[in-house]
């Protein structure tokens, strides 16, 4: 009779085994569907996948692998689980205030400028920018781009329809950011929804773009990417910063989320800090 000895070196700890399962699952999704989540920050990936696992009655993460290989619906749920969709109008009002005070004066010196909202989800931040540009009478010189890897988020962004109760929070944030126009002029309400004015979406183009693998987006004067990079690991963060650096024109601006920074990035010497508190940087 053959007996096998489990040596300590061959026993994997529970957490190491889970790490392996996550790696395998992400590799399967990449090889089968071409979506690369392999460099997303591990902790949030694990958390979101554990949530997905709970809703599919699987006993472990690797049990999702056969289903994901053969079942596109599950794959779509997977993409949805790992998408970054949390956003709101004028989120972090103080950011928009400093954007207006520090960045707009420079933008106003250009006859024409381009703004890229990278990872825009359902578009609220792009619409917020549009409103501020309208207020500052700069809108007609601006071309705005909103991109996200999630097609259904982009489809929603193109519609420009938001739940009416979120407009109240949006208005409150708008006022806190120093906005003085009649906010209600920017949308019309019907039933429980608010349709943003076509005047706002006229100069905005929403499209699908994947920060992980897609190339330079064009020469931008301002790139806004807030609370997206927190979901990427160090290598991917640096790749994306490099992409942003290459996509920015001379002395262009980069705006990150309030708790994100260039500080731990190898690209930090390519930028000067315009606002430490609101994470506004300018390419050197």
């Amino acid at each position, binding site marked *: 009779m053959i007996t096998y000895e489990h040596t300590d070196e061959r026993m994997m*700890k*529970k*957490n*190491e085994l*889970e*790490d392996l399962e996550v790696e395998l699952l992400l590799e399967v999704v990449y090889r089968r569907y071409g979506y690369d989540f392999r460099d997303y*920050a*591990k*902790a*949030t990936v*694990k*958390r*979101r996948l554990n949530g997905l696992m709970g809703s599919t009655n699987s006993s472990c993460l690797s049990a999702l692998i056969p289903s994901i290989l053969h079942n596109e619906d599950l794959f779509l749920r997977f993409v949805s689980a790992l998408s970054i969709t*949390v956003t709101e109008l004028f989120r972090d009002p103080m950011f928009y205030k400093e954007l207006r005070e520090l960045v707009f004066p420079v933008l106003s010196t250009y006859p024409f400028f381009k703004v890229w909202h990278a990872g825009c989800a359902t578009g609220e931040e792009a619409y917020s920018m549009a409103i501020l540009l309208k207020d500052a009478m700069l809108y007609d010189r601006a071309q705005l781009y909103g991109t996200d890897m999630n097609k259904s988020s982009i489809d929603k962004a193109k519609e420009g329809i938001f739940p009416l109760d979120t407009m109240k929070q949006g208005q409150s944030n708008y006022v806190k950011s120093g906005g003085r126009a009649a906010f209600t002029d920017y949308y019309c309400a019907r039933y429980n929804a608010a349709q943003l004015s076509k005047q706002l979406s006229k100069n905005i183009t929403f499209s699908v773009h994947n920060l992980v693998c897609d190339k330079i987006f064009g020469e931008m004067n301002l790139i806004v990417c807030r*609370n997206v*990079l*927190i*979901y990427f690991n*160090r290598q991917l*963060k640096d790749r994306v910063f490099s992409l942003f650096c290459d996509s920015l024109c001379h002395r262009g601006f980069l705006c990150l*989320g309030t*708790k*994100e*920074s260039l*500080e*731990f990035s190898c690209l930090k010497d390519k930028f000067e800090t315009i606002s430490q508190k609101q994470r506004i940087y300018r390419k050197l």
Partner: protein
Amino acid sequence: MHKYAAVVIGASTGGLQALMTLLPEVPEDFFAPVIIVMHMDQNAGGFIPTYLNGLSAIHVKEAQDGEPLMSGTAYMAPPGYHLLVEKGNLALSVDNPVRYSRPSIDVLFESAADAYADELIGVVLTGANSDGSQGLEKIKRYSGLVIVQDPETAVAAAMPRAAIEAVAVDHILALDKIGSFFRKLHNETHSGIKIW
């Protein structure tokens, strides 16, 4: 010689007073990073880590996304963000609140258990809800050490009580004994002799 490499602490109501007692007792060059979630108001601003830093020998700061974990340092979750631990660094998230809390103690503890397993120490302090019990259970399940503040010494006893009910806790310690527990552990790290 112990094997611990990281400490996570969760606190809610009464947490500031508890940390004001605990943190000053932690040695300046404490052998492991200490990562803390304390429930606080969304608009609390950054003054709490600065204030605690002034009282403590260990360096207390607000956690930044992507920040590497260093010994001799206590990291606090910024208001309105979840704080997650990865092996060697921190990560932030704006995912939905968990049981109305963001930052959530469970989110911190569960991610730390994933990253550090049996090298982790989890501590639940005073609080009025049951955030942290689920996370503490995972820490225990992954063979970490679990400590709960004695509810008798807590401003709000519900959180430590819920933790004790949910998990076979390794130590229940009065608030003023937790700091000395960590000091002893720190001395053991340096001397190589088991103290208790």
